[in-house]
């Protein structure tokens, strides 16, 4: 059984490789005629890398791109290194694409105008594959049972409520800023040096009183913590019993939701962008393999087309510029 599958995939890979050699001779003008690279600005094995590998695994099929996609990891500085490298070095020929994380890259472009060379104007959205909302969590033995309990405590004890998250200028931080702004209560944000997983552990261990973390990670750890609210417009199918912050009377929208998708450098020929914008969402929507693997892995899939992503980017840009004013370097 296993052997057969492996043999089949080796065979498929050989044929793909053979075609890749032959194809340029036959249809030199046709895009794509060789494998396409996607830069991931986070390390191998992380959530973005892991999902990027799943959603691109069917690209070699003729109905999709007809060429395999390979992942290039360029981690460092919370994604800044990989994206800086991408906008300064990638050729706009359709063979060099990258994965984006919203709100991270937009927030960074606002917070570090000197260091960061990318912004929504020098990047072309292609399509979105996933959305991972931030959730408000507390330890299992915490006295707080709702977002309102937390707010009440924060009002009575200004600054004493510690809320952690993966770092600064990431989705969790945005969710915290919105939460603090909407409630008007004074509380302390504690960015974790080792990212989301470390922050989640410290909420479980009671090192902090609460945290904003990824829905997908909190979902797996429900036995060890209480999920009080989702920072999104609607409840999530993974956690249907958890209310949104809005339902609890706290006006927080979906600006902190971690959207992941594919983008190209600005200047990529319009016909190539159009081709990708048509085929890539279909590839993300592949039910049999992609959707199944994403669901098995506990990663929420949300496919959006190019126009929707472009609108979402612009909306975030305006909102985050306002929210982050006064917090930047």
């Amino acid at each position, binding site marked *: 059984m296993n052997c057969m599958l492996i043999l089949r995939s080796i065979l498929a890979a050989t044929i793909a490789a053979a075609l890749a050699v032959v194809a340029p001779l036959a249809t030199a003008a046709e895009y794509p005629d060789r494998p396409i690279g996607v830069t991931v600005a986070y390390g191998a094995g992380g959530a973005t890398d*892991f999902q990027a590998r799943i959603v691109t695994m069917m690209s070699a099929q003729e109905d999709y791109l007809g060429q395999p996609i390979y992942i290039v990891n360029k981690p460092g*500085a919370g994604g800044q290194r990989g994206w800086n490298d991408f906008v300064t070095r990638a050729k706009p020929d359709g063979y060099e694409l990258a994965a984006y994380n919203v709100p991270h890259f937009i927030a960074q472009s606002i917070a570090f105008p000197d260091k960061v060379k990318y912004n929504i104007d020098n990047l072309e959205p292609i399509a979105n594959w996933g959305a991972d909302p931030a959730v408000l969590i507390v330890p299992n033995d915490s006295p707080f049972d709702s977002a309102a309990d937390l707010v009440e405590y924060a009002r009575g004890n200004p600054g004493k409520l510690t809320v952690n998250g993966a770092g600064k200028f990431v989705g969790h931080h945005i969710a915290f800023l919105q939460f603090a702004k909407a409630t008007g209560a004074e509380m302390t944000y504690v960015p974790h040096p080792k990212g989301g997983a*470390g922050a989640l552990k410290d909420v479980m261990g009671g090192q902090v009183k609460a945290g904003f973390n990824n829905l997908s990670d909190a979902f797996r750890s429900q036995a060890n913590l209480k999920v009080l609210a989702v920072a999104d417009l609607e409840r999530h199918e993974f956690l249907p019993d958890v209310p949104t912050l809005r339902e609890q009377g706290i006006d927080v929208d979906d600006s902190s939701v971690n959207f992941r998708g594919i983008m190209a450098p600005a200047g990529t020929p319009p016909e190539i962008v159009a081709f990708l914008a048509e085929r890539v969402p279909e590839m993300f929507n592949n039910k049999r393999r992609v959707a199944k693997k994403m669901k098995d892995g506990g990663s929420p899939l949300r496919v959006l087309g190019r126009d929707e992503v472009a609108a979402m980017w612009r909306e975030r840009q305006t909102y985050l510029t306002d929210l982050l004013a006064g917090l930047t370097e």
Partner: protein
Amino acid sequence: MPEFLHYMGNVFVPFNFLVLILGTAGGLIMGALPGLSPTMAVALLIPFTFHMSPASGLILLGSVYTATVAGGAVSAILLRIPGAPANIATTFDGHRMVQQGRAAQALQLSFLSSGIGGVLGVLVLIFFTPVLAKWALGFGPSHLFWTAVLGVTVIASLASGSVVKGLAAGCMGMWISSIGYDGVQGVHRFAFTSHLDGGIHIIPALVGLFAVPQVIDMLARSPGGGSVAAVLRHSLWQALRQVARAPRTLGIGSVVGVIIGLVPGAGGQIAGLVAYDQSRKFSRTPHTYGKGEPEGLIAAETANNAMVGPSLVPLLTLSIPGSPTAAVLLGGLLIHGIFPGPDLFESHPEVSWTFIDAMLVGQVLMVALGLALCRLAARVILLPENYLAAAVIVLAVFGTYSVQHSYSDVLIMAVLGAGMWVLEKYGFGAGPLVLGIVLGPIAEENFVYGRTIAQAGDGVLPYFFGGALNIALMSLIVLSIVGSVILEMKARRRERGREAAS
């Protein structure tokens, strides 16, 4: 019958066993290449498991993880280039033994003690997981801060010659580690060129600091070729007896490895160093450490491998990866629809137990394959030095580039290496410097993180100095420093005695 024995048969199904052998052999080779860390090796192989059954896929990942950790000792011993940060302590006595012609013996001892440590670590994982998971959760930022400080006290043992120079090198390492973007405060530090924006990754630093000075020296020593060392034959039986006669060192190595492996965030990188230091302090002949003492090598390698099993405890029971390698393994589990967590062993007993059993069998297989390869591997150092130097440079550049696909990392490696060559001429060691790079961020990040929490709570002083665990760790630090001072005084007295005699 205990459950782990019940599923042991799965490991020996022909296809699974083949995967295990390939994973172990491949892991040993990848581990031996400088720059290819266990984290990278596991990440590289995850796509290969997409088409396997969950059990076979995890056997591959588990066996590669255990074998790369052990394989890292090979280049540490033969070339004095640690394959991963965990192997730094292995270089101290391991490479001295090679220079004395005892390469075969050093490799045999390294694989045997790796195997013993590794098996003990996996047994701890099998029998004590639920208890230990709770304990690991109790480790907060203040405790991690003190653990890092405890690591710094090891420097006194590493600096053969001058403790002051050792401490100075440690400080330099800490400064180097602060370069780049700091995610906690959201600021860029010391990044005057864009090459430094991403900070200094530990692997390029390690390769540069250890490999480059080595290569420059090789070329300077013998521009026309020629090799230094001979490889004396050493029987396996003798090696076994030597390991069996060192129960205290094996004990120290295993205990240190298990405890450090459990602490999420310490990452196990310092397990080898701490075990080396402790074994030296308990030894009756501490002055032989650093001069080719087999027990120093045994302590370091036992600890490195003992850390592997326990480092998976937080991952398997809480779904929290405690180390970068565990984070990559989490991806490998998720892709097969396996959610680690408290009910993992009930919901997927077959897959999870097969995985753990594979690590256990993998350890034994690793020892067997490693020992079989010993004599062949040891012959590497008989190559003329100019060829060897060229090969090491190729591997160094390749390994450095492949970590993050970054040309900046290659430049950083070269610059740090050239600087280290100069520093070595003035008696500064690469060991303390790397220790500074590893421990600096742990100490700093956890101090800043803990301080933010403390300021919102009871204040900084009670947060860092109160509580049983903080006090216990501080006592260990004091003991470690006192121990170093006593050792130093003994060594001085010895020297004076020798002078008086002559």
